[in-house]
């Protein structure tokens, strides 16, 4: 494969399996790079990247910025809280103004699903989706797949359970697409109110009992309860959620096998994951963060090389 089939990373849905494999293989090379004494390569030194974040982010923004800097790109950052967006400028105008300053790529997080797709149709730069509302978060899914592969090898036939707030999670949707393209079996698990209707049509198993999900899976990818996106009550209380769906060490010890526990962060300790799990050897949460930089380097490097 000589280049990616797309010049934007809008969602995993648009990628082919070969694209995903190409990104993951390239990420392995970049992981070696970021473990060198000097962690920088000059590949993107003539590229300028704008990180445009209309929604809060710690990990993703830092991770993208580090990835860009380690590829020697020039980076400008923009967050909506202190910008003219507040004065009523439209998204296309904002981005076109930034592009007039000769920016080649845009990494964007937005609260509206489809915002990066809209942008890709209307502006010239390469667009990377860093999360659009409750829709997709492709780089998170790629780094999750990379971390699983690192731990388990080929994902063909592996069983992955995604546990928690599936309804409001862009990580869940991107994970489902990505894992299925790599040949894994996917299950979603959570209280019925937090599972999207008709989710089984995506070809995933649905389970309401977290203990059964844990007994079935090789990897548990645990998601945060996204209280900020919940306008109505989906469950009686956090305490009750934690009682029924929180994962603690005892539950893992009762299994007759070792499973891998993942979490895209930020963790609500004591809600979806007990501290004795989050800090245990089962969890690869911090490895995920490290791999995030390598995977994002691979994505930016490969997108920059795609000829229009």
């Amino acid at each position, binding site marked *: *494969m*000589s*280049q990616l089939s797309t010049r934007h990373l809008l969602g995993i849905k648009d990628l082919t399996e070969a694209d995903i494999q*190409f990104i993951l*293989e*390239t990420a392995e*090379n*970049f992981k*070696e*790079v970021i473990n*060198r*004494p*000097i*962690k*920088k*390569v*000059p*590949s*993107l030194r*003539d590229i300028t990247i704008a990180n445009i974040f209309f929604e809060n982010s710690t990990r993703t923004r830092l991770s993208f910025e580090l990835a860009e800097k380690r*590829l020697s790109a020039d980076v400008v950052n923009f967050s909506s809280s202190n910008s003219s967006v507040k004065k009523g400028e439209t998204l296309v105008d904002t981005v076109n103004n930034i592009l007039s300053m000769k920016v080649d790529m845009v990494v964007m997080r937005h609260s509206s699903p489809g915002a990066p797709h809209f942008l890709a149709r209307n502006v010239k730069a390469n667009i990377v989706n860093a999360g659009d509302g409750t829709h997709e978060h492709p780089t998170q899914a790629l780094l999750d797949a990379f971390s699983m592969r690192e731990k388990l090898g080929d994902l063909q036939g592996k069983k992955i359970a995604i546990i928690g707030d599936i309804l409001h999670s862009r990580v869940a949707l991107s994970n489902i697409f990505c894992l299925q393209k790599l040949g894994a079996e996917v299950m979603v698990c959570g209280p019925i109110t937090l599972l999207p209707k008709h989710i089984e049509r995506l070809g995933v198993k649905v389970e309401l009992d977290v203990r059964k999900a844990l007994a079935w899976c090789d990897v548990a990818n645990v998601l945060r309860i996204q209280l900020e996106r919940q306008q109505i009550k989906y469950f009686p209380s956090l305490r009750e959620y934690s009682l029924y769906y929180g994962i603690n060490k005892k539950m893992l010890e009762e299994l007759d096998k070792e499973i891998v526990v993942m979490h895209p962060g930020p963790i609500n300790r004591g809600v979806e994951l007990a501290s004795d799990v989050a800090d245990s050897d089962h969890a690869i949460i911090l490895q995920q963060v490290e791999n995030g930089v390598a995977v994002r380097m691979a994505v930016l*490097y*490969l997108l*920059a*090389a795609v000829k229009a």
Partner: protein
Amino acid sequence: MQKRLVLNQQQIQIILKRFCHQLIENHDNFDNTVLLGLQPRGIILLDRIVEELEKISGKKVPAGYLDATFHRDDFRRRDFPLKANETKIDFLVEGKKVILVDDVLYKGRSVRAAMDAMIAFGRPQKVELMVLVDRKLTRDYPIMPDYFGIRVNTIDTQYVVVEWASQGQPEDAVWITEKEQK
């Protein structure tokens, strides 16, 4: 298509032996010297030299593989493989004498990129270049080998092909061929 044999298996074997003795002459017992093979094709030559050196000296010679894909100066400028190869260097080159090993020296751009990549592993005391074939007329950068197997006069419309028996070819050989007319 014209195809001309430049080196045969026996000649390559003689060159490899000569390389080893030159290295031993200049670097004594390799206390402060490391060898780096350039990916993808220099590593085959490197492996042969290391094997030969260890036979002669009876000592383990520190060696690694260096990939310069991310350091190339032609990214986005022309078609070249984006896919990198493994870099495997489990030592620092800080203060060491480094010998870069590649099969063919053509424009010198790979070697320039490789020196750039190498510096990520420290500041070497001295860097030398060893190549099997030196295409002396086609250089873009001011780079010369310290050790070469054979020096050939070629032009841009020709290829130098290095074949290794260990890679499934009938025997070790170096050929010059003409690029096919389009």
